[in-house]
């Protein structure tokens, strides 16, 4: 086997050296009755060429963005990834390493993560960030648990316009702990959350709002956070499309206590839903209740700057059942990808790409609204996603688009039964004008 260096002779010599006659001797501690007598029923070993052909055939069965113009967003976004990102993270020194427990031989990972934490703070306007969680949805669940630890309150108030799958994850995490989750409805005109719909009580640990929300609508975070703070609840802001931060005011300026989100847009392939990047940032005074790995600056025995994992007394390998989270392995390589992406884009690049997303989405939205049989469902400000209401059956519209190699959007009925006639459309910078014009022609022909 090509991944096993020992030759048959070396193997035999090693067995002799330890006083065994057969390999089977090594497994004596396993009761005889449990030792397999037959090989596992798995496909037989395949060569590299056969395997590549097998996976190429499978990959070709997917409608990927190389073949289709994809107007799907909803928590996963097609953005252009600069070539430097893959070139750099493909270095074995980044991807074949473990969690940096030995800082003297892990400064590359540690410094990159310190830079990542800084970038997340700059973008969100928060004071501290961790070195990543699994994804946006689990980052939100961890934020809820943190809010409970900080406030000792048992109720969560969550907007219905938070990504439906994120809401499901929050429910899974909170149900066994007995936390109750109360939902706040969106305004049927704007698609946003009205401040007066935010009704926390003295039992509310946190108010959760997403911006831009699942409908793409930008929320009035300042007013919503103020409502939370009136009763001493925390305001958790969710961001599933962080490219929006190139254009929008950071939640840290608007009263957010915890900002969580999905960092996939920052240079990470869309890859059928993962691996992605859980972003988590908060206020400095809450740092000792923050979950996940944190990298801090320090100095070595000769006074030179270096970086280490720090505040470990929050973590499971020190505190066991009293830890702030059970998380161990998270998504550090994805955090490094985001660091490389953001360093490459810089302030102007991020601003430009955000502007392109907004302009392209706005153009398609304006033009769709002019088509007979179609209108924008919500009037609130949007970034790169918006909801279309159709007089034609949604399935038919999307089918017609698909015939022209366009994945035109996400039907909303499964998530919001009242939006049966609606679908969510996303436009990013990778969608060319020609695809937008084709899209409009298809609608026109209906």
């Amino acid at each position, binding site marked *: *086997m090509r991944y*096993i*260096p020992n030759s048959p002779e070396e193997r035999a010599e*090693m067995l002799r050296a*330890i006083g065994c006659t057969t390999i089977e001797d*090594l*497994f004596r501690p396993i009761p005889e009755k449990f030792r*397999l007598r037959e090989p596992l029923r*798995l496909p037989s070993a395949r060569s*590299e060429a056969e395997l590549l052909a097998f*996976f*190429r055939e*499978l*990959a070709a*069965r*997917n*409608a*990927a963005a190389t073949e289709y113009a994809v107007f799907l967003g909803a928590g996963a976004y097609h953005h*252009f990834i600069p070539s430097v990102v893959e070139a*750099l993270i*493909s*270095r074995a*020194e980044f991807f*074949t390493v473990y969690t940096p427990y030995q800082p003297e031989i892990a*400064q590359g*990972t540690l410094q*990159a993560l*310190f830079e990542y934490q800084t970038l997340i703070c700059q973008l969100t306007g928060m004071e501290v960030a961790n070195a990543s969680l*699994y*994804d946006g949805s689990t980052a939100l669940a961890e934020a809820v648990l943190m809010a409970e630890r*900080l406030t000792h309150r048992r109720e969560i108030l969550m907007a219905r316009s938070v990504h439906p799958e994120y809401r499901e994850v929050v429910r*899974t*995490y909170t149900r066994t702990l007995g936390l109750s989750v109360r939902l706040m409805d969106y305004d049927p005109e704007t698609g946003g959350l009205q401040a007066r719909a935010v009704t926390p009580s003295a039992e509310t640990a946190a108010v959760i709002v997403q911006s831009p929300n699942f409908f793409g609508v930008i929320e009035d975070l300042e007013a919503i956070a103020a409502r939370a703070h009136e009763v001493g609840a925390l305001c958790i802001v969710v961001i599933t499309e962080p490219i929006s931060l*190139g*254009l929008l005011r950071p939640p840290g300026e608007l009263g957010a206590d915890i900002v969580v989100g999905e960092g996939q847009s920052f240079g990470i*392939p869309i890859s*059928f*839903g*993962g691996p992605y990047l859980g972003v988590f940032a908060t206020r400095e005074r809450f740092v000792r209740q923050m979950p996940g790995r944190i990298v801090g600056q320090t100095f*070595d*025995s000769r006074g030179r700057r*270096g970086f280490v994992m*720090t505040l470990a007394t929050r973590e*499971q*390998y020190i505190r*066991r059942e009293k830890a702030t989270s*059970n*998380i161990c*392995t998270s998504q550090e*390589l994805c955090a*490094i990808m985001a660091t490389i992406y953001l*360093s*490459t*884009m810089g302030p102007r*690049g*991020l601003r430009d790409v955000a502007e392109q997303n*907004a302009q392209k989405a706005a153009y398609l939205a304006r033009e769709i609204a002019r088509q007979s049989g179609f209108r924008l469902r919500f009037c609130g*400000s949007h970034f790169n996603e918006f909801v279309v209401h159709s007089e034609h059956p949604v399935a038919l519209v999307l089918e017609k688009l698909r015939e022209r190699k366009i*994945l035109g959007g996400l039907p909303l009925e499964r998530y919001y039964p009242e939006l049966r006639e609606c679908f969510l459309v996303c436009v990013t910078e990778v969608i060319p*004008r020609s695809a937008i014009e084709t899209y409009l022609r298809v609608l026109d022909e209906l």
Partner: protein
Amino acid sequence: MTVTPCHVTREEGLIFERSRPGRTAYSLPPLDVPTVPVETWIESRFLRADQLAGLPEVSEVDVIRHFTRLSRWNYAVDLGMYPLGSCTMKYNPKLNERVARLEGFAQHHPLTPEELSQGSLEVLKTLEDLLCEITGMAAGCLQPAAGAHGELTGLLLIRACLEARGDARQKVLIPDSAHGTNPASAAICGYRVQTIPSTERGLIDLEALRRAADSEVAALMLTNPNTLGLFEEEIEEIVRIVHEAGGLVYMDGANMNALVGIARPGDMGVDVIHLNVHKTFSTPHGGGGPGAGPVLVTSELEPFLPVPRIVRRPDGTLALDYDRPRSIGRMRAFYGNFGVLVRGLSYILTMGPEGLREVAETAVLNANYLAHQLKDTYEIAYPGPVMHEVVFSDKRQRAYGVRNVDIAKRLIDYGFHPPTMSFPLIVSGALMIEPTETEGREELDLFIAAMKAIDRECRENPELVRTAPHQTRLGRLDEVSAARRPVLRWRSEASSAPSGSPSEERVASPEP
């Protein structure tokens, strides 16, 4: 303070310190749609006013040099042996990287209609089926993003199953040799943790288990082989005790590398197991993730698995089934760390059944070889035939004032990554070594020679060991002051802390 001049590539600053106004590294095509000012549809009070000040302004060359230089300060599996116990740092095949990067996978949106997602769904379904065969379980879920996430999923499944039996319970039993994630996961599920001691042989104390296994026991969380590298020989009796008490058996599959193709947890009566694809199935660990922690269960637990489930329709096509009324719900958005899972499948199909068996055989042979060659030099806390890893202690070297951490740091000078030291907690001064099957005899002999040389140094020149490493760019780092006065982000010299926030020097309080 005078600083000795150092080669520029060894003194790379932060990316922010490289920033110069006007440098750029990005390129975008010109905007090709008619534009209107953003303020006409986004209220201006929602717009950012700070121009993203502080983000680095660098060229593409700066980016490449910066991160390439940083990467050279890391030790990696591709450079040499990385014997972190219970972490299974084996070689990460390059083929799998190529497979995961195929555009049909990498550019496939997770909300693409099912009929246009058959390739990715086939990857997931095939992997789920193969993992069931490897573990001897009935069904599985690939959503969990890492081992600890799998533990949480597994315990939630156990809770749901017991509630369905009308017998919700309060506590989870965990051996004292367990990894820290086990008790932390149990706590998130609302369970009380009761620790089960180990015997002097390092195995679970059956008498203590019997006493603890009362009507409140929801589950036993068992790592097998355990973190001492020992197989729990009484597994059949352990399972019987827990089942008779009405509890379920959760197996932490972190150490599955010792068992693949040799024995199956399902055959031993385990009810739930998680696997670490980033350990046993060779996917790169990435400096702390991404991983994948699939959970496999018995048929009794299958109805509770997270949504969506991947199901095969009568016509052979695959679909996502959300209509699962008894499900514990969703563990994360979408379907799991697909990019990691596809690499894992590629690995399993490369190995085949004989190859996987050879993995376990070689991993166990390598660990026993190390144990045999070093047992006269370093104390083995719990002697016995080991499986895939061996735990030494610093007991003999402590006589010279040298601790496990010193030995670990000195190993760096010899060109090896140090072993695991933070657990098992029942071994004082632990050095937990897992060579994996992807080290050959030559590398193992070099490692053995290094360990013996360090032992000599402990006796002849302990100060040399205590102050190691000596060959790295930086010396030992002060982790205590890093935690006492946390500096968790860079700030420009010009900018101060934002108004209203405490300074970086102040230790944050735990409560608002």
